[in-house]
């Protein structure tokens, strides 16, 4: 674990954060960054978290 905080004394409660906090989040961000950088021509990027679309099917399946 890296030392996330640095100072001139020891804190009471050490931070318990793993070295690579969230691998999948890092990967997703890196992928998104690379994808956004290459947008143009046939390259597009669709955000997974930003979908506002709602199914047009009504709840009872009509």
């Amino acid at each position: 674990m890296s030392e996330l905080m640095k100072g001139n004394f020891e804190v009471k409660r050490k931070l318990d954060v793993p070295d690579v906090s969230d691998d999948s989040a890092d990967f997703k961000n890196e992928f998104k960054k690379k994808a956004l950088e290459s947008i143009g021509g046939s390259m597009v990027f669709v955000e997974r978290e930003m979908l506002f679309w709602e199914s047009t099917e009504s709840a009872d399946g009509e």
Partner: protein
Amino acid sequence: MAKILFVNPVVREEDVPRHIPYGIALLAAIAMNNGHLVQIYDANAWRKGFGVLPDVYLADDWDVIAIGGLTTTYSFIKEACRIAKEVAPDAFLVAGGGFLTSMPQDIMEWIPQIDLGIVGEAFVTWPEVLEKIDNKDTDFSATLGVICRDGDGKPILNNTRPIIRDLNTLPAPAWDLFPLEEVYFKNSASLFSEDAYRIKRRIDINASYGCSLICRYCWHLGTTGDMLIEKDSNGNNDVVFTYGRNIRYHSPDYIIDMVKELKKNFNIDFVNFLDENLMTMDASSKRTWLKEICEKWIAAGLQPSSRRPGGKAAAPGEEPGVYWSGTSHASLHRPEILKLMYEAGCTHLVYGLESFDPGILKNLGKGTTAQKNIDSVGECMRSGIMPIPNIIIGFPEEDFQSVRNTINALIKLGIHARPHFATAYPGSEWYYTYKESIKEQYDGDLERYVADLGDATKITAVISHNFTGLELLGLQEIVAQRNLRVLDQAEKYWGRPGVTNVAAPQESFNFRRKKIDGPIDGSK
């Protein structure tokens, strides 16, 4: 002694973290020298998201949580302050830096969790505030240079804190409290020059404060004699920014000693000077300051191996000297000083050329001309130093001819650039001149504008009198492609009767187009 947690906010998220926050590093050193207990959580370096903040805030029982940065860190700071008050309500929340100083009243309204703001230079105010907190005295009504709250939470801005006269009294920044090996050194190299691309261990230093010029888009942080505090028409204190400047330098000896220490303690091979503009400062010193720095750099053995007579580049990790970079000015640089700077190890210099149009440059306050801008690129290159030109479009008076002038110069000089958009950052003359137009473009919501600000590569509020955002986006691409044919075509079909300007200038209480210096302490 107070227990203090600094949080360095995330900045320029689209890039890896590269900059140790110099202001926070200095304030941490000052606090420790005054006997306080300090921890730093560098959120910008770690980029762990907001999820980790509650753990950071709960790591100890903080007397003070301190946060601050430039305007573009606003959104991060707002959320970090919200979480702080939720998780650690007993800690006194202090803010400072550019985001606050440029608009203290607005920020205190938009982030109600902030208990106290330090406005402008914090070198004297910060330890004074800590001492009071240590004494359980949170009545700041008589403290200079702060914005505090009255019993009802209403912000009260106190009078200006005079800036310090002698910079050499400052301690070295607390560099060792930042993740140098873990983060910053890994991101030391840059693509600005071959030498800068090879380096492994960079630390930035700030050797001077101020710049005598008055570029309309620039702002001097209220820390360079550019700020007054006066009563507005409602009788409330507010910040007033002026053309006043109290130019201050660290002495060449102080700088060389600092770099020698950095070499000894961290084995650095590169220093980037954060100074607003090394060359305007050199002119203000009557051409003595930079020359002395370069001569002493060489005499101290800091000259990089490749710049030594008959020398060649050292193997990675074995560089005995220190390369460096900074900012320059097209009409103030001189061949003699550029040559000496190269010999001392300067690799590249950023030139804010901005435009090659005579009319735009005349109104900009930069003190340069189109011809000087053109000449500067070759003049700098001839010294061996790589010039890094900055280009902007969307100036208030931008028109097709001014864009054409810029493209022609780019072609002539072999420069490829995707220009930034002219952006009115809070504190700048443009901001106050176009504040009403900006508000209008954000449906009256100034906070949304501030939260939207980034590094001027995208359109925020337009301040061009002639072009809309739509048109500026097209012009940006035309400049990037240097495509004069499409520019001519656009001009031919442009201009619709009945369309009014997007941006219109105004007079403002908060900006005085006069050379009135802010206060500096009386001692000589």
